């Protein structure tokens, strides 16, 4: 417990509190009057309203589109299922700069919808909503589908035998068991879309703005720290409320269910209805996810002299024609991998310890900490980045110019995923096993090594994978941290896109494709290691 608490206190709570406090004090006197002033501004109110309603609409739309898929992934068996589950998760870890480009190809001018029906949705709120579906599809499929696949279908069958109709059986037996998972997924999606940044900027155009965008502008552009601080507090309050509800639903689910092996619940589709559903889900995935990703791959291969690997070859040299980087872009791949590995190690240690502590202890304080661990997902990257800047500036913690700050910031985002993955498994370990080992004379570390570790090893691997993938795609905090000159993949892509010229654009697409492949491979490896009955893998 001590280490995770210390980690969050030093690398999250303190920096965020410091930057917010700096904004709200003048010469040491608190200026709470600012809160009223900022909240009275009609523009800010507009932003608040838009942030809230777009998050609600995105969440509803995501559930509507992804729930049938959750059923299909849970109950039906079809070839390529594992690959597909990895593919739908790729968007979740891709940087938004890149996704914006891909998505415009679907919704914008000359895009698929435009060609087929002459419909253009770019710079409309629909583009934002659909992109949010694209990003969060996997959250619903994995969270709800993960649980659904472990519900015993025989319960529903029993209800049918007792005379219930098919729908009544589903409504009375399966639905109540699923509600907490659906609620948890909905809240995760709401959390992600409420704090949406890149998607809104790129696809919505300058007419739309969320709280997150506004905080960035006030901090990074205008240096209006008081306004930024008030907005941060508002976002905090909202996110805190969401997390409280989330923690409550997740806890209810964890205690209530007996789960079965998912391998036994899925069958090959039978009957026209199931085939049609499978077809519809596959078509949705194809249009909404595979097409945008495909566009990136296509553009990375489409050189001035037709298709080829020219852009990929260009990635290997720093100064092919002038030199955008001091290091060749391909080195960014290694930088990214190194940072992501360090971030994963930190996230695993901190998140694993937190999960272990949360398993062993109950009580309100500990539960509060559970929710607190999720907060970094809901706080603006610029707030964290600038907070680091003004707090980690004195020895022994003068980390402002150290490379370790990058993985530390990435680990902040990774920890919630580790905790979410480990917690259900650790809670499933029978306490009597540990007691028996202790009675037989094993020391606590040995108990952990010989009882807990073997049982949670696979969950640990899954958690590691998520933390790794999340750090690989993390862009926000990384940009605001002063870095020595070794860009990560997402940063390198952004820098390439920030320059004119065919080669730069092509290389940006090629690097994005590499990032996609690295993510997909990591996830596929994880799929292989998916624990059979533990319920891990959801987040």
């Amino acid at each position, binding site marked *: 417990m*001590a*280490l995770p608490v210390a980690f969050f206190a030093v690398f999250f709570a303190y920096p965020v509190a410091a930057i917010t406090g700096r904004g709200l004090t003048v010469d040491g006197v608190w200026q709470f009057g600012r809160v009223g002033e900022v909240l009275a501004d009609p523009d800010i109110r507009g932003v608040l309203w838009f942030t809230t309603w777009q998050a609600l609409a995105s969440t509803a739309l995501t559930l509507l589109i992804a729930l049938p898929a959750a059923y299909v992934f849970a109950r039906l068996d079809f070839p390529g299922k594992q690959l597909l589950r990895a593919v739908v998760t790729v968007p979740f870890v891709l940087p938004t*700069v890149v996704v914006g*480009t891909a998505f*415009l*190809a679907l919704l914008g*001018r000359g895009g698929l919808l435009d060609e087929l029906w002459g419909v253009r949705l770019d710079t409309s709120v629909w583009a934002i909503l659909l992109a949010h579906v694209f990003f969060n599809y996997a959250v619903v499929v994995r969270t709800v589908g993960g649980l659904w696949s472990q519900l015993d279908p025989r319960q529903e069958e029993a209800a049918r035998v007792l005379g219930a109709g098919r729908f009544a059986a589903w409504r009375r037996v399966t639905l109540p068991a699923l509600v907490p998972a659906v609620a948890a997924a909905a809240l995760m999606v709401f959390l992600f879309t409420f704090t949406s940044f890149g998607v809104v*900027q*790129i696809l919505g*155009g*300058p*007419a739309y703005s969320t709280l997150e965008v506004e905080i960035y*502008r006030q*901090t*990074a*552009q205008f240096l209006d720290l008081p306004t930024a601080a008030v907005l941060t507090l508002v976002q905090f309050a909202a996110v805190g409320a969401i997390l409280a509800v989330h923690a409550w639903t997740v806890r209810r689910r964890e205690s209530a269910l007996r789960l079965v092996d998912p391998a036994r619940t899925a069958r090959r589709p039978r009957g026209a209805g199931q085939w049609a559903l499978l077809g519809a889900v596959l078509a949705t995935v194809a249009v909404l996810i595979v097409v945008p990703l495909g566009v990136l791959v296509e*553009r990375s291969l489409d050189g*001035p002299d037709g298709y080829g690997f*020219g852009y990929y070859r*260009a990635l290997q040299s720093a*100064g092919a*024609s002038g030199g955008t*980087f*001091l290091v060749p872009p391909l080195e960014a791949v290694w930088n990214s991998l190194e940072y992501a590995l*360090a971030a994963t*190690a*930190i996230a695993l*240690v*901190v998140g*694993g*310890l937190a999960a272990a*502590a949360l398993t*062993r202890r109950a009580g309100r304080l500990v539960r509060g900490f559970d929710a607190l661990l999720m907060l970094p997902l809901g706080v603006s990257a610029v707030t964290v*980045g*600038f907070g680091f800047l*003004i707090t980690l*500036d004195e020895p022994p913690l003068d980390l*402002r*110019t*150290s*490379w*370790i700050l990058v993985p530390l910031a990435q680990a902040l985002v990774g920890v919630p995923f580790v905790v979410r993955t480990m917690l259900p498994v650790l809670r499933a370990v029978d306490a009597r096993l540990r007691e028996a080992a202790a009675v037989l004379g094993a*020391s*606590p*570390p040995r108990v952990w090594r010989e009882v807990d570790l073997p049982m949670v090893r696979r969950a640990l691997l899954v958690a590691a994978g998520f933390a790794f993938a999340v750090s690989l795609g993390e862009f926000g905090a990384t*940009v*605001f941290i*002063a*870095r*020595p*000159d070794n860009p990560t993949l997402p940063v390198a892509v*952004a820098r390439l*896109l920030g*320059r*004119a*010229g*065919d*080669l*730069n*654009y092509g290389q940006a697409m090629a690097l994005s494709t590499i990032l996609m492949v690295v993510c997909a491979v990591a996830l596929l490896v994880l799929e292989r290691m998916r624990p059979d009955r533990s319920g891990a893998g959801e987040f």
Partner: protein
Amino acid sequence: MSTTKKFAVTALAAALGVSTLAACGGDKGDSGSGDPKKSKTVTLVSHDSFNASEAVLKAFTKETGYTVKVLKSGDAGAALNQEILTKGSPRGDVFFGVDNTLLSRALDNGIFTPYEAKGLGAIPQGVRLDGDKHRVTPVDTGDICVNYDKKYFADKKLAPPKSFDDLIKPAYKNLLVTENAGSSSPGLGFLLGTVGQYGDDGWQSYWKKLRANGVKVVDGWEQAYNEEFSGSAGGKKAKADRPLVVSYASSPPVEVLYAEPRPKEAPTGVATGTCFRQTEFAGLLTGAKNEEGGKALIDFLIGKKFQEDMPLNMFVNPVIKDAKLPELFTKHGVVVDKPQTVAPEKIADQRERWVKSWSSLVLK
């Protein structure tokens, strides 16, 4: 209780182990431990666009004995704001990348220590915006201008626009895409250009006409140039339909440089009457650990070697009179005779108000 405690101790050890290991394996540079007075490392803090060729940085080390460590942190605005927040305890010795739109904010916050660079005489008075105070030293200039897609205008047999006035003519209806002045530096530059051209009272009515003529506003340069502008590589792939974009005077040479094979002529051109001049400055940070090294670095930044290396790395123009431009620039670049400028103090004063009224004029 005790279980958790021991657990925590073990884990703490493990975590420390991880970070120690990481530190051992880290060749990512450290903050230069040892006696700061004799430090051989000088740290340059800048924005993401900073770039210099390795050979030139090595030449600096050879001349002065100092090694340059570069720290980049976000775009120009974010990087400067971070310097202001860490005033008095800076992360480096020299900051490069304050431009004239941000200069007053930097100076008012007093983050720089005056230093009169050696070789200042080679820089024209016109760009030395801090006059005799020498808190900042000009390093480069660049122009934000409307770029046009040559092929589009040739195909249509239409003359490309030359001036701000041209852009509101019916012939160029629905052709221009620009960036959000509230969040993008070229977007702000273009807005300031119109303020310079039409004055405090005139720019708003100009933008009303521009809006009526179908100007499109997107969030950032990346979207405008790569997605909407028909003259760029990305735009061609995205079937973009806007042949006019707010970009830089140096964008056409960059298009030539980053093409394989290199074309004989740039695919894009510059409307030279639509330009706003940006000047970027460097300054010695107050509280710098290595002040001597910092001074040497500023001297070097306005030295001939760095100045002549700069155009192909950051796509900006040198400030010293006798620096030679690379052939790429002389052949494919343009000379902007009369760029618009606005005094930095005025920008600092009015910027938020301008951006706000621009937003309500153009975005709502």
